[in-house]
């Protein structure tokens, strides 16, 4: 092996991808060629510096918040997937289901775009409502109407009591009211847990959104919005929103607790 031949395969040698016989030839050549030993060291150094530079580069490091958010969403996705059920019910059933879903999707195709836009709009308004009602105007609620006492009792029995059990009594209602933003009326339940202020919002005044065209049933969508975390999911009709200044994991956990209650 001469120097030119060695340099042609030096990198493959470094990658340990040469045949055993060729490796022997390389070793024999390197034994008596100082210049090629230097060349090999230089290439090894370039590779090592490339690796360390790329791994140390801040731009190529994943944002821990993004990683955490992705992990939570994937875990949620994993919980809600019904693949196992479908698989166990057999291919014929899956075929029928696909047919029904396709028909459903075609029928709802035009509506789904507007449903998604409405969902996003409602999410934005829910954040504003939380900020205005629960955070900025803590002492002066922008209340458009009182919630009937029967509904308040229902909320206490069906949502608050189970939450108190789960959170060791560390959940209190600060206010329950209906508030109005941009013509949308929300039932707004403001809760306090420790130092955190939590809003649970339900919009019931618009025509129900066909949530199935947007989310799989029960799936929770979580996203940070400024200083708050917003988790939304499909209730029995319209989307429900849980907004707080807790961590994303805590907020999703709370939303999950509410979603899992029997009458949501």
């Amino acid at each position, binding site marked *: 092996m001469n120097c030119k031949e060695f340099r042609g395969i030096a990198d493959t040698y470094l990658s340990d991808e040469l045949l055993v016989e060729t490796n022997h030839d390389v070793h024999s050549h390197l034994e008596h060629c100082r210049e090629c030993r230097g060349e090999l060291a230089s290439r090894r150094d*370039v590779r090592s510096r490339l690796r360390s530079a790329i791994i140390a580069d801040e731009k190529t490091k994943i944002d821990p918040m993004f*990683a955490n958010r992705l992990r939570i969403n994937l875990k949620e996705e994993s*919980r809600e*997937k019904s693949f196992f059920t479908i698989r166990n019910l057999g291919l014929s059933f899956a075929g029928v289901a696909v047919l029904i879903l396709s028909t459903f999707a075609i029928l709802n195709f035009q509506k789904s775009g507007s449903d998604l836009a409405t969902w996003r709009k409602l999410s934005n308004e829910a954040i504003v409502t939380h900020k205005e009602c629960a955070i900025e105007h803590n002492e002066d609620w922008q209340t458009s109407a009182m919630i009937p006492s029967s509904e308040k009792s229902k909320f206490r029995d069906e949502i608050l009591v189970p939450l108190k059990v789960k959170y060791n009594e560390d959940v209190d209602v600060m206010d329950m009211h209906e508030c109005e933003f941009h013509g949308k009326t929300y039932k707004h339940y403001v809760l306090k847990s420790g130092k955190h202020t939590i809003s649970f919002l339900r919009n019931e005044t618009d025509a129900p959104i066909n949530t199935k065209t947007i989310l799989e049933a029960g799936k929770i969508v979580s996203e940070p919005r400024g200083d708050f975390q917003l988790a939304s999911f499909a209730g029995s009709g319209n989307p429900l929103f849980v907004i707080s200044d807790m961590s994303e994991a805590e907020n999703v956990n709370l939303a999950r607790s509410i979603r899992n209650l029997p009458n949501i």
Partner: protein
Amino acid sequence: MFGFEKKQNWDQFEQEAMPHMADVYRVAYWLTRNQTEAEDLTQETFSQALKSFHNYELGTNCKAWLMTIMYHTNSKRLKKLNRLQLVNDTEERIAETIAFEPSVPQNLTDVDVIAAMKKVPKNFAEVVVLADVEGFAYKEVSAILNIPIGTVMSRLSRGRKVLRIELSEYARNYGFDVDQKAGEM
């Protein structure tokens, strides 16, 4: 019973796939050269991986499996965006006609190395990142990119050569002594 299966599925996914998220993101960044796009690609890759996890054989190379999904996902994204690039012949020809193989001096910084790497044509850079940074074997790179192993080897050779040339350019700009060896390769 189904709940148990789901939990087991997630536990295995978390154990096998999630530790490679930072690696997938890093390669996604080098593929897209954009942080937002790299996050989108990472998210799509893991979502797809979770859906296909029943196809993954436990104990095999999960990182390579994720990279394969990522490149496949990226091809689909590029097709959708009409940005799919075929092999750039001009870049290949430029790399072929490199006459000098200068040695690389020691005094370069990480910033220089990154800047030099960004000048390597993308087709070559992606194989260099997979083989020399992420440590995949040639055969694995071939499977990830779905290209013949011979193509992997020729792109690697050219990519590494271009990188050395670019690094020596940086060194020359700093006034370091760069030894030029004409026609050695």
